[in-house]
């Protein structure tokens, strides 16, 4: 502000009769309050811009994901190497995408992304309770569908579609879902 007004002290005494500390720091409380709220508003607008940047980033990531298309077919293991109640971990579709293949019964093969949908901690199969358990925050996912049934996660595990060809198990794609 370019206008200068003399500051009235709380005791209404003139400036030259004020103590030294008040002369050194002549802060007017009402003006200070006003500036604090104005600057907080300004900061919130900055945060608002940050949120829009985040939205654009998600849009870009979505565009890149759509451009990559479906991942290639990948051989995980042979059926003989996977016993009933056995587990095989693999990376699919990228080198950082941990996945898990389980065989709850002789005729059933299921594969999911191993990252918990809460905070990406690895989930562990629990054949007794027919679920995947996340030891970090006690999230639980149904083994037959990957659906989140307990704990903090809300989204199901990403499902890896499988094919069996000539005694080998292949991953053919990734299915994501919000519910």
């Amino acid at each position, binding site marked *: *502000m370019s*206008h*200068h*007004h003399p500051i009235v002290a709380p005791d209404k005494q003139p400036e030259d009769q004020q103590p030294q500390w008040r002369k050194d720091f002549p802060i007017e409380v*009402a*003006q200070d*309050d*006003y500036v604090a*709220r*104005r600057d*907080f*508003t*300004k900061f*919130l*607008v900055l*945060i*608002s*811009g940050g*949120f*829009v940047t*985040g*939205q*654009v980033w*998600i*849009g870009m*990531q*979505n565009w890149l994901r*759509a451009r990559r298309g479906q991942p290639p077919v990948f051989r995980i293991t042979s059926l003989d190497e996977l016993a009933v109640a056995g587990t095989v971990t693999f990376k699919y579709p990228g080198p950082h995408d941990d996945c898990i293949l389980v065989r709850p019964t002789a005729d059933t093969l299921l594969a999911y992304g191993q990252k918990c*949908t809460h905070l990406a901690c690895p989930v562990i199969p629990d054949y007794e309770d027919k679920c995947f358990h996340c030891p970090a925050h006690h999230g639980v996912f149904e083994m037959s569908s990957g659906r989140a049934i307990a704990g903090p996660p*809300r*989204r199901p595990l990403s499902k890896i579609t499988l094919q069996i060809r000539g005694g080998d198990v292949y991953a053919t794609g990734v*299915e*994501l*879902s*919000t*519910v």
Partner: protein
Amino acid sequence: MSRMPVNNLTGMARTRRPLTRPQRMTMVYGILCIVLMLVVLQLWLLTATMNAFLGGDSAVIWPAGGASAVCLLLNLGLLRYLYAIEHSTPEQ
């Protein structure tokens, strides 16, 4: 030829009085409340969009991004208005 705004009741020319600090304080509180609500709305939009993206649902991403951008434009307009009233009135 420009005409001065006239008060309908008195018929006298209406002059614009500078805002007092309590008036400006009320306005900054009002603007702050609106900006805060818009920012909370944007936070909700961002978390919902991220959840949809991670769940493979891409239909909501750009509409939500557009809504968030509209909120930002509103916020920028309100901030501009806040600075405009500050610069148009002398310090009280």
